[in-house]
C-alpha cells in the first residue's frame, strides 16, 4: 500500500508526452508570430495573450508537472497569480481614475 502511494507521488512523465507538448508549443508560437503580421486592431493583443496563456498553462501542467501535484502545490502555484491580478487591478484602477488637481 505504501509502495503504491510512493510511486504515485513520483509520477514520471513519458518522453512522448513531452514531445507532444513541445510540438503544441511550437505550433502555438508559429500561430502567434503569423497573427502578428495581420491587422486585427485591438484583437491582436487579445489573441497574443490568449495564445501565450495557453502556452504557459501547457508548460506549467506538463513540463513543471503541476498536473500531477497535490492540492497544496496547486495553492502555492495559484496564489501568486491572485496577487498578480490584485497588483494589475489596483494599479490600473488607480492610474486611470485619477483626477488631476492643478
Amino acid at each position, binding site marked *: 500500500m505504501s509502495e503504491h502511494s*510512493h510511486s504515485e*507521488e*513520483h509520477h*514520471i*512523465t*513519458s*518522453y512522448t508526452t*513531452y*514531445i507532444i*507538448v*513541445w510540438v503544441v*508549443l*511550437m505550433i502555438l*508560437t508559429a500561430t*502567434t*508570430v503569423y497573427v*502578428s503580421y495581420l491587422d486585427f486592431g485591438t484583437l*491582436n*493583443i487579445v489573441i*497574443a*495573450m490568449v*495564445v*501565450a496563456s495557453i*502556452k*504557459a498553462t501547457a*508548460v*506549467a501542467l*506538463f*513540463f*513543471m*508537472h503541476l498536473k500531477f*501535484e*497535490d492540492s*497544496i*502545490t496547486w495553492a*502555492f*502555484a495559484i*496564489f*501568486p*497569480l491572485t*496577487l*498578480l491580478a490584485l*497588483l*494589475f487591478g489596483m*494599479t*490600473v484602477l488607480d*492610474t*486611470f481614475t485619477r483626477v488631476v488637481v492643478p
Partner: protein
Amino acid sequence: MEQANTEHSHGLQMDPAAEYSSSKLGMWLFLGTEIMLFGGLFAAYVIFRAKYPEMFLEQHQELNREMGAVNTCILIFSSLTMAVAVSAIQKGKRMMSALFILITILCGIGFGVVKYFEYGAKFAHHIYPDTSIFFSLYFMMTGLHMLHVFVGLGILAVIMILTWQGKFNEKYSTPVELGGLYWHLVDLIWIYLFPLLYLVG
C-alpha cells in the same frame, strides 16, 4: 510491528517523502516571488502602453521579430530537453540525464548569444535604455530575464556535474527536479515577454 517502528527512528533524519514535498513547496513559493518580481514590470508595461499606444506601436518595429522568434524556439526546446532530463533521472538513467542537461545549457548559451547580437544591433542604432519609456521597459524586462537565464545556467551546470558524478538516482532526484522548475519558469516568463515586446508592442 517492531521492525516497522525501528525503521522510523533515524534520529534527526527526515522522512524522505516529507523532505521531497517540502523542498518542492519551497521552490514553488520562490517561483511565486519571482512572478511578483516580474509582475511589477508587467504592470508598468500595462500602464505605459495604455498611456502611449502610438509610441509602443512605432518603436516595437525596431525590434527584430525573427531573432525574437528564434530565441523563443531555442528556449522552448531547452525546456523540452530539461523535462526529458528530469524524467531520465527519475528512471535512473544518469548519463542520459546529464547529457540532456548539457543540451539545455547549450541552448541557454545560444539564447544569450542571440540576445547579445540583438542588444549590439540596438546600440549600433543608438538605442539605449534611456531612449524612451518603451526601450527602458524593453531593456529592463529582457535584461532581468537574461540575468535569470545566467543564474539558471549556473544552477544547471552544478546539477549536471552532480548528476554526472552519480549523486542522483531514481530514489533521489529532488535537485534535478527543482532546477528544472526554475528553468521552466524562465521559459514561462519569456512566453509572455516575446509577444508583448516583439509582436504587439
